[in-house]
């Protein structure tokens, strides 16, 4: 099993941390993982992305050309990566701010109103955790409870935000 994921969006949408959540989840499930951020000429409000490879074997290339899954949190990111997704792959689209439908028919498109769902969970800031829930539900990569454990570990220094994030995860998980 090797899963290649590209996560992209505006800086500030939690793109890089969403990738880190997945890398942590992989590690706690005794899988191998690489998390590689774009660190080029990006800036606040600009686009950010990260590449994740999760595998049961040591990861060879952390550089991804054809992801199995694209998580696009804004329109420029969707446009930039949509044609790279492997045929048969999955595209998770934040339909809260991306109003277009994709033209490709050889990939599975999942439209998720991440911002609205996050607001229901308590804060629009948890939109990335909503997407994490949706991705785990769609991919079946790790058991749901294991990822919830990961979320609790990640936020252990800010225990007051754990319930909200677990709620956001749950809402994302059940939304797809």
């Amino acid at each position: 099993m090797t899963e290649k994921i590209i996560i992209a969006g505006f800086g500030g949408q939690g793109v890089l941390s969403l990738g880190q959540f997945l890398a942590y989840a992989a590690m706690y499930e005794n899988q191998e993982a690489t998390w590689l951020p774009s660190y080029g000429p990006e800036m606040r409000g600009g686009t950010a992305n990260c590449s994740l490879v999760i595998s049961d074997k040591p990861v060879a290339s952390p550089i991804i050309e054809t992801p199995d899954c694209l998580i696009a949190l804004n329109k420029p990111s969707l446009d930039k990566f949509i044609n790279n997704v492997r045929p048969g792959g999955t595209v998770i689209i934040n339909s809260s701010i991306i109003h277009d439908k994709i033209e490709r028919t050889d990939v599975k498109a999942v439209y998720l109103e991440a911002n609205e769902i996050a607001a229901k969970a308590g804060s629009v800031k948890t939109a990335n955790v909503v997407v994490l829930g949706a991705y785990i539900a769609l991919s079946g990569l790790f058991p749901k409870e294991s990822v919830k454990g990961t979320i609790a570990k990640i936020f252990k220094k800010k225990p007051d935000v754990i319930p909200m994030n677990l709620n956001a995860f749950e809402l994302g998980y059940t939304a797809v």
Partner: protein
Amino acid sequence: MSERILMKGNEAVAEAAVRGGCRYFFGYPITPQNEIPEYMSKRLPEVGGAFIQAESEVSAINMVYGAAGAGGRAMTSSSSPGISLKQEGISYIAGAELPCVIVNMVRSGPGLGGILPSQGDYFQSVKGGGHGDYRMLVYGPASIQEAVDITYKAFEKAEKYRIPVMILGDGVLGQMMEPVVLPEMTDIASIPVKEWATDGTKSGKDRRIINSLYIEADVLEGMNNKFAALYERMKAETACETYLADDAEIILTAFGITARIAKSAVDILRESGVKAGLIRPITLYPFPSDIYAQYAAKKTVKQFITLELNLGQMVEDVRLAVNGAKPVDFYGRSGGNIMSPEETVQQVLKKIK
């Protein structure tokens, strides 16, 4: 097994250095290695060490020179343009027979270039970036775990040979996160006492002098010959990984992060019926020439293809090692661009003779 933790390459290298006994770090900021000095600035005071952000790279390397001369485990890190500035100091440290560790998280050049990953400093690292006839022990780790293991042992190696050790990473290695297992903290008291260190104590009858100036030709030639013998002994450190190379007809070869891309390319090529394999030097100096010569002599091997994030540097060492026995081709990307495994496969298929 010890606990795995998820760490960024730069931070993991810094922690590994501390656990390997590093107590003195001198640096100056530059992307993409800033997490190393940042981490050290917080971590070293916790273990009784010292961190100084110098006013320049030139100053930082000379602080390393001083701390190493006093017998401390000293380190600096930078990225390409900063490493160029340190070259004078590195040559002095090599000439004065002092141990230290230097990390270069390479960015693209020449000049200020860009902040994205590159392997354009291969020549500078392995052929002597500073003046004079010196060498360093140069490692090209390909994963964060390997970078940790190498950094942890780097001070011991530097002291064994009394040379600067360079860890040649790149922007990907520095910025990437992977799960790692960290080694145990070295007991500082267990580090052998340096009989040559100028630590300010009256510890012996003989004067101890740290110096790289030898005006008399015969004396300096004596030093040069001593260095030549040292570099010969250092060949014992040569390290290399091979992957599916035993029955390979096409040998890809690359170091560092490019070797991981090459490994994925080998897997794809194998699936499509091309007998590809990989040779990955772990030490860039000493270069594992013998391994290349062995594979070049094999009847099954038809061709070598070197992959680098530069315009072709390590390929020269590969050609010297293969010595005309088999064709050696090259594919590289530069400017901060990185070849994907798929792109590598396309290029290899084009080059297969």
